[in-house]
């Protein structure tokens, strides 16, 4: 019984990845606040309706010839390369408004910490049920 297949854990993991990606986009916005012609960007909000399966795993590099060098020294067939963003980025209005971005950063951080805490507590519940 793989624990990673329990829907609540895969949902929380997807949410954590989403917040991580969003932090990167917001960091780009903040650092480019004074760059001319820069359009602020944000991620599409996560939706879980009806689709509790995690987003498709990134493609793994296959070796068509055993003599080819694997990507990062590990078995390329199993270990996926750097994950491309599976979350959609869309523009969010015109020039960067620093206050809005700071608000989003704070909200992002708090939501991420919520997801993290829920994940930890969920695992803790299972461990308690096991008697440890």
């Amino acid at each position: 019984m793989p624990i990673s297949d329990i829907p609540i854990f895969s949902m929380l993991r997807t949410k954590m990845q989403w917040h991580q990606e969003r932090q990167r986009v917001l960091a780009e916005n903040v650092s480019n606040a004074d760059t001319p012609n820069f359009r602020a960007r944000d991620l599409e909000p996560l939706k879980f309706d009806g689709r509790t399966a995690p987003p498709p795993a990134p493609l793994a590099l296959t070796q068509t010839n055993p003599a080819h060098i694997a990507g990062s020294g590990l078995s390329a067939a199993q270990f996926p390369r750097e994950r491309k963003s599976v979350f959609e980025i869309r523009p969010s209005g015109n020039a960067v408004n620093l206050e809005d971005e700071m608000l989003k950063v704070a909200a992002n951080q708090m939501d991420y910490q919520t997801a993290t805490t829920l994940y930890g507590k969920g695992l803790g519940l299972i461990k308690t049920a096991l008697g440890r």
Partner: protein
Amino acid sequence: MDFFKSIAIAASGLRAQAGRMRVISENVANADSTAQRPGGDPYRRKIPTFRAEIDRALDARVVALGPVRADPTEFRTRYEPGHPAADANGYVRYPNVNSLVELTDMREAQRSYEANLNVIGATRRMIQRTIDILRA
């Protein structure tokens, strides 16, 4: 990796704003630097520019200080016949630096710098909470 990317992006913002502060402080320090001889030009105000560039290693858009441009506005003139740099009519040309404008720019740079610091702090807290899952 993504969290550390965010920190690197914000760090590039810090560097850019620090470079901007350097240019501003150069302007403020040289606000009264006239030429030494009657024919020369005084200090010309510098304007920092930013540009967004894609960092290949990070696969993210970071900011970099672009070329520092010279402000083409006219120099101020003052009537000072005794000054070594006074021209034939006794006018001395002073740098085109306006202290109030520089002060406002400085505040902007400080605000942006602190915003980037906030991003780094928030990201650091998120990384810490992630690792705390394993602790308990």
